[in-house]
């Protein structure tokens, strides 16, 4: 186990403004953790030591001169290495992008700089974000700090692991089928996929432009609120008030979403539902019938769009991809246009159904992952009587909300007897990402 999280953004900010710490001290603490653990956990692809220390010194100078950029001022962050940071490579964890150097910051990174954040490094990921375990990376498989024999989830696995191992206070990831929420659940922290279209995707290597999202990965829901607003260009986030659980109307989409869960995950989820009821929330059941077709819809969209983006390099330098990612991309070249368009129509139907389910309540609640973090190298996991592919299980409960575009957040929901985290997913109304953060913060106090 290599779990040494630093303070939350919120806590660090209070200590910084009381003069009890400095941005340089925070950056140095993260750099020391990187020095101690990065070689074994393979969390970061690039460590930006000198740049980070200079940014931290600048943050301290500004604060001393009375310039406070807001809650992200002086906060050490990592950035998924799928997102451009000007002047350094964006590897996408692939040999395909060897010698690449980003000309400028992605808009979300520029906003973080404006908010005073300190960038300590670029985080490992599943190659081109096309996988859920981080096992396929040109820089080696990232490992889960809670149990290094297990995956941190993916594709933003290095981002989540960097927080749990103390290499950063928070991170920025991307989520096409669950790639923020899956590693957040596998590592026992918080991950937010905002409403689709809210955060700019410029300077982000695409996987599937229809389904890609950028979002924060943090230790707490309060921190997700702060980082989400900075990413949205509002460095001074509005005051945050968690929603009271008493009186909340919640719904569990049981068919499909609760059909195939590991026993320990089901126990933690049902315990969370019981705690919410005991605290005064109304929890009912609901149904999203098209969710059962979600995997088929998702597959046809993501394969087609990824294959189109990668076609030239698949032809020119196929040997530079890891074999599993190359095979997945090649498969996308066989999807018929008519089936892609059927899938896009299915996406619209799914959106209508999730709209209907969530419009009757304040939020949907469901597990984030049907299993705990899988062992590295595992191809299947047994649930009940059947062996199921890890990739299918990892995406099963999250991809629906990439297709529908609804804001969805994963927060910690207890641990198994072996100490492995489980995640609870909270899904809200499209365009009301702030509201889902408030609801999640109320729930977090009860179930984390």
């Amino acid at each position, binding site marked *: 186990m290599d779990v040494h999280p630093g303070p939350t953004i919120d806590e660090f900010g209070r200590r910084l403004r009381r003069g009890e710490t400095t941005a340089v001290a925070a950056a140095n603490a993260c750099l020391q953790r990187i020095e101690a653990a990065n070689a074994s956990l393979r969390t970061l692809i690039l460590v930006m030591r000198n740049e980070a220390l200079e940014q931290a010194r600048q943050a301290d100078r500004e604060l001393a001169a009375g310039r406070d950029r807001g809650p992200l001022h002086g906060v050490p962050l990592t950035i998924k290495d799928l997102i451009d940071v000007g002047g350094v490579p964006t590897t996408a964890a692939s040999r395909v992008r060897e010698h690449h150097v980003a000309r400028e910051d992605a808009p979300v990174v520029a906003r973080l700089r404006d908010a005073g954040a300190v960038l300590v490094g670029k985080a490992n990921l599943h190659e081109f974000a096309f996988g859920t375990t981080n096992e396929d990376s040109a820089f080696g498989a990232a490992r889960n700090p809670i149990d290094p024999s297990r995956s941190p989830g993916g594709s933003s696995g290095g981002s989540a692991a960097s927080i749990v191992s103390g290499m950063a206070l928070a991170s920025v990831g991307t989520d096409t089928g669950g790639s923020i929420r899956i590693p957040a659940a596998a590592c026992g922290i918080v991950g937010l996929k905002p409403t689709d279209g809210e955060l700019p995707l410029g300077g982000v290597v695409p996987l599937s432009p229809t389904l890609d999202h950028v979002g924060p990965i943090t230790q707490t829901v309060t921190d997700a609120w702060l980082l989400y607003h900075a990413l949205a260009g509002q460095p001074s986030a509005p005051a945050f008030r968690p929603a009271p659980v008493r009186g909340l109307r919640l719904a569990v989409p049981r068919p499909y979403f609760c059909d195939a869960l590991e026993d320990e995950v089901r126990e933690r989820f049902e315990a969370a539902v019981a705690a919410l009821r005991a605290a005064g929330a109304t929890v009912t059941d609901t149904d999203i019938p*098209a969710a059962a*077709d979600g*995997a*088929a*819809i998702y*597959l*046809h969209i993501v*394969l087609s769009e990824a294959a189109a983006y990668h076609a030239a390099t698949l032809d020119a330098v196929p040997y530079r991809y890891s*074999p599993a990612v190359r*095979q*997945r991309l*090649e*498969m996308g070249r*066989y*999807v*018929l246009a*008519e*089936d892609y*368009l*059927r*899938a896009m*129509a*299915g996406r619209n*139907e799914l959106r209508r159904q999730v709209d209907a389910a969530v419009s009757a309540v304040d939020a949907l609640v469901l597990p984030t992952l049907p299993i705990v973090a899988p062992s590295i190298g595992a191809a299947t996991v047994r649930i009940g009587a059947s062996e199921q592919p890890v990739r299918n299980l990892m995406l099963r409960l999250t991809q629906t909300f990439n297709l529908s575009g609804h804001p969805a957040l994963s927060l910690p929901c207890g641990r198994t007897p072996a100490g492995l985290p489980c995640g609870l997913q909270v899904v809200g109304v499209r365009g009301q990402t702030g509201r889902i953060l408030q609801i999640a913060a109320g729930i977090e106090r009860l179930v984390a």
Partner: protein
Amino acid sequence: MIFVRRMYNPTLIMTVEAWLKMAIADAEARGLPELVTLLEGLAQATRRLRAAAFGGDARA
């Protein structure tokens, strides 16, 4: 004339099975036999997608 005959020849309808056969033949011709299992999985997903009838019907 040839066009009309092709349109009404049921053996030339683009079923998932016909698509899969062509896709596998193409993958093998390209030296990618490892795609066969993946394409069979994709075919299952395509059958499911088509059965859900999301694409509309020109007669409706």
